[in-house]
């Protein structure tokens, strides 16, 4: 083969910093050397020793590639409550306000471009019989909120803003943050939802940093100043309540909790370098198991327990020359406690029963085993006699091992409302599809097709993931998580059809559709390009009675399953 033909076919191998953060998603500013010098002189970075960084990941390059400077006008919404975080912010100048009315849907809806969640009345439900549109994907162009004045475009970036800041401040409880403060770092590192909406209180310049850059700074900063700051914020705001979710620490006294917290470490494992991690990880499932970052190795001394904060982990055991999956752990689950307790009870040395590895990435609180043992010895916590590993399945459970591998390798364990169809009962009657269409203006929001393992199919319907990567980078917040039920929903009125969510969804569960007017004509913009909108399953959140697909299945074949719940999964399998 000639060199010329090789050159013709070859492309540059994609690298981490091919696309600097400052040029992503409509941003086109480039950080100059002067900008970087200025940042390095700022208090946020001045104490960081650049010599501690690896030569391949120098601090200067992290700032150049993982950071962007963003200007906000007064009222511009910076982050919205419920959005999935993938970056953190540092206020360089100006000030922002944090909305403190958390969980108040009515107030949040005013400034987030979200949809007000209401259920249809009985008559409205019935009226769908004759009110559903004859044409597919009908939209009322007048209902678009883009005309209402709270969305604007800044250099190619769409931004939601509050038109009357003073009225919002007067009406809602807010707190002001001035220059020199970080925010959004916990959501970014943990890839958890933003807990509050933040908007610019005055014209402000913010430094926004990708979580990967933040992670590297935390990793290589010898001074550990930023890490100490973030961990102190985490301990102050979230750690105690997170620890109390574990039964072992539920009844611990405040004093003992205060003693425990300094020993806990917040750690992120794995590589999650793009918004499309599952697609990049797709391929041979055997290789996937081999290549997953190992957090704790089977057979090692259990020197810590891991309380998972976000992400999903695989439990696997050695089986001949390979490894077999025996379960998975999701947020709120603990690894290592069984072994630590066993060692404590017997007084003998024990080992981890299984390997814990990150499926993609994992954010966990690591608690040293000796601290747990000390607490047990002092009686600060009691030994739960009936403790066992939370999700032991596969080889020892009722869930078929092949099915477990299928669900974990395909990352379907992310699903909280996964559509699982028992193909041995499904008569392919499509009543589910018709019911879906009947409740969505004659537009079915899923496809009764998908990957099959044994007799179970995971249909092509939104699974309302635990970690909905589809929400990352939605410019208007149109795709959002319902704060009460945790459903991932799209607001038709604020969706601008950018397709970011559809391209991020690892399961192709979001479809971009051409919208139509009442006459059936495709809606177009001034350049004659069709107006697209993202559509997907909304789990019939506005319908009486729950998901129409499940209710319409005559043969109990279709179930929406929360794969975070072992009993729910077993309930479907063991019927």
């Amino acid at each position, binding site marked *: 083969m000639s060199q010329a033909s090789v050159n013709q076919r070859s492309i540059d191998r994609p690298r981490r910093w091919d696309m600097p953060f400052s040029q992503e998603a409509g941003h086109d500013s480039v950080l100059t050397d002067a900008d970087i010098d200025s940042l390095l002189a700022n208090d946020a970075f001045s104490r960081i020793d650049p010599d501690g960084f690896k030569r391949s990941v120098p601090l200067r390059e992290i700032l150049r590639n993982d950071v962007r400077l963003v200007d906000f006008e007064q009222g511009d919404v910076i982050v919205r409550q419920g959005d999935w975080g993938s970056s953190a912010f540092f206020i360089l100048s100006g000030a922002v306000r944090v909305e403190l009315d958390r969980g108040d849907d009515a107030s949040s809806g005013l400034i987030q471009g979200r949809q007000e969640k209401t259920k249809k009345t009985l008559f409205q*439900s019935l009226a769908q019989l004759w009110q559903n549109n004859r044409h597919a994907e009908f939209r009322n162009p007048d209902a678009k909120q883009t005309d209402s004045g709270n969305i604007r475009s800044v250099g190619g970036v769409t931004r939601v803003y509050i038109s009357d800041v003073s009225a919002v401040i007067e009406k809602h409880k807010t707190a002001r943050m001035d220059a020199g403060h970080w925010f959004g770092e916990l959501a970014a590192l943990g890839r958890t939802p933003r807990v509050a909406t933040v908007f610019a209180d005055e014209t402000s310049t913010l430094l926004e940093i990708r979580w990967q850059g933040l992670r590297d700074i935390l990793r290589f900063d010898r001074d550990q100043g930023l890490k100490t700051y973030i961990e102190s914020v985490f301990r102050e705001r979230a750690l105690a309540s997170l620890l109390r979710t574990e039964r072992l620490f539920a009844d611990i006294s405040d004093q003992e909790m205060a003693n425990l917290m300094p020993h806990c470490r917040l750690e992120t494992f794995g590589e999650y370098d793009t918004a499309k991690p599952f697609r990049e990880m797709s391929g041979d499932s055997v290789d996937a198991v081999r290549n997953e970052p190992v957090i704790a190795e089977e057979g090692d001394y259990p020197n810590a327990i891991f309380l998972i904060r976000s992400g999903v982990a695989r439990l696997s055991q050695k089986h001949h020359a390979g490894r077999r999956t025996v379960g998975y752990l999701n947020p709120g689950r603990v690894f290592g406690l069984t072994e630590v307790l066993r060692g404590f009870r017997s007084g003998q040395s024990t080992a981890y029963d299984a390997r814990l590895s990150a499926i993609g990435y994992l954010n966990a609180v690591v608690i040293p085993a000796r601290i747990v043992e000390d607490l047990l010895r002092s009686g600060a916590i009691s030994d739960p006699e009936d403790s066992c590993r939370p999700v032991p399945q596969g080889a020892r459970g009722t869930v078929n091992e092949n099915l477990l591998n299928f669900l974990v390798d395909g990352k379907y364990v992310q699903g909280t409302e996964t559509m699982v169809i028992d193909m041995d009962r499904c*008569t392919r009657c499509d009543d589910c599809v018709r*019911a879906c269409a*009947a409740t969505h203006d004659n537009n079915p929001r899923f496809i009764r*097709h998908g990957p099959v393992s044994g007799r179970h199919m995971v249909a092509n319907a939104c699974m309302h993931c635990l970690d909905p990567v589809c929400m990352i980078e939605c410019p208007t917040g149109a795709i959002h998580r319902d704060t009460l039920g945790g459903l991932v929903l799209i607001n038709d009125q604020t969706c601008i059809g950018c397709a970011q969510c559809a391209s991020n969804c690892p399961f192709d569960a979001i479809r971009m559709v051409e919208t139509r007017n009442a006459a059936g004509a495709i809606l177009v913009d001034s350049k004659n390009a069709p107006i697209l909108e993202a559509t997907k399953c909304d789990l019939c959140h506005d319908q*009486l009675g729950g998901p129409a697909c499940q*209710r319409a299945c*005559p043969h109990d074949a279709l179930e929406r399953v929360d794969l975070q719940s072992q009993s729910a999964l077993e309930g479907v399998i063991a019927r």
Partner: protein
Amino acid sequence: MTNFVLRRIIGVVIVAVLTLLLLVATRTMESALLSPRTWLGWLLVVIVLFLASYRVRKQFSMLPLGSSAGWLQCHIYVGLLSLPVFLLHSGAQWPGGLIEVMTGLLFLIVFCTGVVGLILTRTIPPRLTDRGEEVIRERIPVFIRILREEAEAAVAGAKDEAPSEVLSELYLRRLHSFFQRPTNFFSHVIHSAKPRTGLLSALADTRRFLNTQDEQTMERLAECVRRKDDLDYQYTMQSLLKYWLFLHVPLTWAMIVFASCHVVTAMAYTSQ
């Protein structure tokens, strides 16, 4: 014991107990020189209307009317109960008169199609899962077209190769019609592999006349035949799952029409 098996046992026991109670009640009334046929007739009317309402429930999937699966369970067991009620009502005798004969005949046909449908819906899905790739029925003609193009391309050979005459002749004689549309419906209904075996044998028999390259083409054709046969099987079985309803549902409405006439005439004669 799975939930479904337990559910089935409970349903059958309930139907058996209700049948027994109906029998006892009928005999008791008869021994008291009362005629149970009228109230059995009205019971049958209520049962038939309830059974027919399942179709209406399906049209109102947007309303919180309970799960379709729950309705179907009731439909099945109330449907089973309808047979003893019918037999008790008719006195297990074949009725006289056109309306009564038509009503009785239609009732039995609807009952039988219901039982057949129940058997089909419980036996075909596992077979579909076991054989061939899962496909949506409406998409099968598209997949057949793709297979046809693949098979024709194989027979036509590469651009600079002469097509094998043996394979071309066999394709025109045996395979051309096979790849046109879903075929061998009734063979698949009775799970006969004869057409598939016949075509594969015909292809294998050409091996002695083929060179190495044509043998590869023959193997590709054989693979296309297997995949097409699997598609035909999927098409047949999925069609069966749909077609039985084309008998069961329209005949139900026809039966309701005749049953209404029967009720009117029966009431008219009773009142005289």
